[in-house]
């Protein structure tokens, strides 16, 4: 039984992490056509925020709860800064944004190395997350359940923002037809900024979850960014529904391959599977006529 439960549960947790990382990417690509290669570094920024929070809030049990909104703000503001200073000048030039954001990512990574050192710093797991529960032979860590809850909360929050708030309406309008939305009085500039802030902030939350697995280190984001892009592409660009399904599928499939073969082989096979899948369905899991987000 545990031959099934281990990869299933561990894979769901990995999928949840990929989902939080991919949500922001899907959001900014869907709305603005921006391929943000610095997104992984926003994840890293979230992890370092968790570390810094633990230096200030020394009560470990509380510090993670403080770190979550703090990481959202820090990564969100970094994203906003990137949008205002660079991205805004090159909308609808996806290749340019891709190259520029690769550079920004390098810059942020080196900055983290210079400020915090290359080795990384520990983030301590709070007491209430430290432990496991035995599920069909797998000692399922509380931390993995927490990651899954976090991903679902992020998804629900984003869904609510898009569906029930006036900003959400404006985002959807901008995605569907930017010119028309502008004619109707929507400031697409401010909508873009909010989208970038929220998308980057979500990466910050993901960074806190990652920091509970591995602590911080300057290269932390690069591990996740490629898989997150894989999820966005496989799910169908600009499709939240597809992103969700693709994230959990990639997570679980990788975990099964890891269990049966090896970690390195699992990455290769998962990528190969997605490549084959995209041959058959170049548009990803779901097709949209208008680039609807919800």
């Amino acid at each position: 039984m545990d031959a099934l439960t281990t990869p299933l549960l561990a894979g769901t947790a990995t999928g949840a992490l990929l989902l939080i990382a991919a949500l922001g990417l899907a959001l900014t690509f869907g709305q603005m056509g921006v391929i943000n290669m610095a997104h992984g570094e926003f994840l890293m920024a979230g992890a370092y925020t968790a570390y810094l929070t633990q230096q200030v809030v020394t009560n470990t049990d509380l510090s993670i709860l403080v770190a979550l909104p703090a990481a959202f703000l820090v990564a969100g503001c970094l994203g906003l800064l990137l949008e205002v200073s660079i991205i805004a000048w090159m909308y609808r030039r996806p290749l340019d944004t891709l190259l520029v954001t690769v550079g920004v990512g390098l810059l942020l990574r080196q900055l983290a190395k210079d400020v915090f050192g290359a080795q990384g710093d520990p983030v301590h797991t709070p007491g209430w997350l430290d432990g496991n529960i035995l599920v069909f032979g797998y000692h399922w860590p509380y931390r993995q359940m927490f990651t899954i809850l976090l991903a679902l909360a992020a998804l629900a929050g984003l869904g609510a923002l898009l569906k029930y708030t006036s900003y959400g309406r404006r985002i959807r309008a901008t995605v569907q037809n930017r010119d028309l939305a502008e004619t109707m009085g929507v400031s697409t500039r401010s909508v873009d900024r909010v989208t970038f802030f929220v998308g980057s902030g979500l990466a910050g939350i993901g960074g806190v979850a990652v920091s509970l697995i591995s602590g911080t280190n300057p290269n932390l984001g690069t591990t996740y960014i490629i898989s997150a892009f894989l999820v966005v592409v496989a799910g169908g660009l600009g499709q939240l529904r597809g992103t969700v399904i693709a994230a959990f599928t990639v997570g679980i499939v990788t975990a099964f391959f890891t269990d049966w073969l090896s970690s390195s082989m699992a990455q290769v096979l998962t990528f190969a599977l997605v490549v084959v899948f995209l041959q058959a369905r170049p548009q990803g899991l779901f097709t949209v006529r208008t680039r609807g987000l919800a």
Partner: protein
Amino acid sequence: MTGTVLALTATLGLSACGGSKSGESSAAESCVDTSGDTVKLGFLNSTSGAMAISEQTVRDSLALAAEEINASGGILGKQIEPVVEDGASDPATFAEKIEKLLTGDCVAAVFGGWTSASRKAMLPVVEADNGLLFYPVQYEGLEASKNIYYTGATTNQQIIPAMDFLKSQGVKTLFLAGSDYVFPRTANKIIKQYAADLGIEIVGEEYVPLDDDDWTTQVAKIVAAKPDFVFNTINGSSNVGFIKAYYEQGLSPAVSPIISVSIAEEEAPAMGKDVTGQYAAWNYFQSVDSPANATFIKAFQDKYGKKRPTSDPMEAAYTSLYLYKSLVEKADSFDVDKINAAADGVSFDAPEGTVTIDGENHHIAKTGLIGRINADNQFDVVWSSDGPIEPDPFLKGYDWWDPSKE
């Protein structure tokens, strides 16, 4: 990519040069000028990139050794003039920089390198130039060059003592966890063959890529296998993910303790978990009780601060500069060929204990130590080999070793 091509071109060009002046082995070092009051030595460590945090500690202890040697009169009466270069955590850069140090700066010897990839990149250059490289880190062995002195452990001084320790503890089952690159795979190949000889059963073997920190699936396999011990050849930050997953799934030193070959005094506090009671195999710990070590620690902390721990690669680097001094003084020359001719039996009272150079393979005899991590993140020595172990990089003296067998 460009860097690799450049290094390759440089290397090829060099071997061509070396070939054209065959027979004139002294031609290359004729550029080393020791007629003045100083001797130039190259310090080539990564002070940028992923390896910077580790290699900077080596750079610091090299600087300390140079300062001490200069204060006590230098080498053959000449003051050391360090020429420092950054290897930038990139093997191709190491190859370019050592070429620059040997033929441009005309240094008498180079000290540095950390990853095996960096050493492998420097090897053809230092051989073509007939230069000298002192390499301070434990590695996977199976190498010997007349132009390299290896002052870190080879496998029969770290991996094999660790296995002997496990045998002495009555260990019956062992799980191997490593990063997916050359050192862990070579180390595990040796471990598996020796384990078969010792009657220890390998109940699992898992690798995770260096940049991947999520070990939950692999640790679940350790939980299921219930090994007496876990042999850890994981490198760098990936250890943090491993250690966290290990404790998260209910493992502990009481159930399946871990023995590591890369967690030292600096790494232990950075794990994000209390790792008290886990083990590591090295040839030096800060806790080693010797007058030479007390002097070394005091000098190091006076220079760099009380909070800075000392570690095995730092000690090996510090020792390498003193060994070089002894080598030159015995040869009474800075000439590489004369140094090599004088090398066998040169020794130094190092912080780890007395070390002696083997003139055959250019490694040094070192004592194998096993330490258990205490609450201060220092290591209590719980086991030691019977005196220094002769270096045997190709494991010729071990009849269970068959390099062709997986």
